């Protein structure tokens, strides 16, 4: 089985978020980047398929040279090779076009992407890639088993779970549940050394269009002061909710 894991290069959740150019650009100064957590669950599941079923695992991302450390980390975790599409990740549609070209050329049985990245939270890419390549698609996937060319997946739905079957080639939008957090792997020194020798191919961009343009970013408004009301003072609570918060 030939697996491709799509990796997003996203800011660590502890990063301080700021904007530049009149709030139209994300300020990357001092920001640490990591593998998108939803992708990391998928990568770890792919490693399981590699170790138990002899699958080959490739990783891919879209971005400039600055994303290569993130790909090297994926290689250190155990992926066999990496591809970087040399293009800025402008929006979900552009990224999907780039990834679809890689998927079409690679002949993969299984493509694992995160259900969404934790930076822009678009949640569009895996579905778009599936539509562009004609592959089966399961989103919000929390369990995946593959037997030959048949796959059984469980996906999260509103208020429950749904078990679906599909045939390969398959694209999934994965998330926590594919593996547990305790199963995630921290690269060891041997893995880091080996990752330096693994192939990291850079391919040119094929995308021709973007669908969106950022007008501006803004941070959430700071939280206001908290007013404590005594448990037996309902009149004051109602007065504050009605006259100040105007919630009732």
């Amino acid at each position, binding site marked *: 089985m030939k697996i491709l894991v799509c990796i997003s290069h996203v800011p660590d959740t502890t990063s301080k978020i700021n904007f530049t150019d009149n709030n139209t650009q994300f300020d990357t100064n001092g920001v640490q980047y990591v593998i998108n957590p939803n992708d990391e669950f998928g990568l770890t599941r792919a490693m399981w398929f590699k170790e138990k079923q002899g699958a080959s695992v490739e990783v891919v991302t879209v971005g400039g040279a600055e994303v290569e450390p993130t790909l090297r980390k994926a290689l250190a975790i155990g992926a066999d090779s990496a591809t970087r599409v040399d293009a800025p990740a402008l929006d979900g549609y552009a990224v999907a076009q780039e990834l679809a070209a890689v998927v079409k050329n690679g002949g993969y049985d299984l493509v694992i992407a995160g259900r969404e990245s934790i930076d822009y939270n678009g*949640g569009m890419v895996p579905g*778009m890639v*599936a539509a562009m390549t004609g592959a089966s*698609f399961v*989103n919000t996937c929390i369990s995946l088993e593959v037997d030959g060319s048949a796959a059984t997946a469980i*996906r999260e*739905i*509103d208020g429950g779970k749904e078990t679906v079957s599909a045939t390969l080639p398959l694209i999934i939008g994965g998330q926590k549940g594919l593996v547990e957090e305790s199963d995630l792997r921290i690269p060891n020194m041997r893995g880091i050394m080996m990752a330096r020798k693994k192939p990291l191919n850079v391919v040119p961009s094929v995308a021709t269009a973007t669908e969106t343009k950022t007008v501006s970013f803004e941070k959430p408004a700071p939280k206001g002061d908290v007013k404590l009301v005594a448990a037996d003072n309902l009149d004051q609570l109602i007065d504050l909710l009605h006259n100040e918060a105007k919630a009732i």
Partner: protein
Amino acid sequence: MSVLVYTESEGGSFKKAAYEVASYGKGIADQLGTPVTAITFNANDAGDLGTYGVSKQLNITDSKLEKFNAAAYADAIAQAAKAEGATTVIISSSANSKYLGAY
């Protein structure tokens, strides 16, 4: 030209999210000066969508679409958008809507 909203239903009844997107769609439509059209699958009745600003409802009744199918639903919504000349299509952020939105 209209704003098209996908109003989700389950067991023939509209979900809460259906009314939320209808209401949001009405706000967008007012800005654009257009009516709101809702599309749903196998709804039992029109529900209260009219009170949330929906002026036209398209209810697709097909036993093959009783179970959610992202590709088929997305295809039907795309056809409806084209037929209605919709310039804006609004879906909720439910698991199913996010699933079909990417198509």
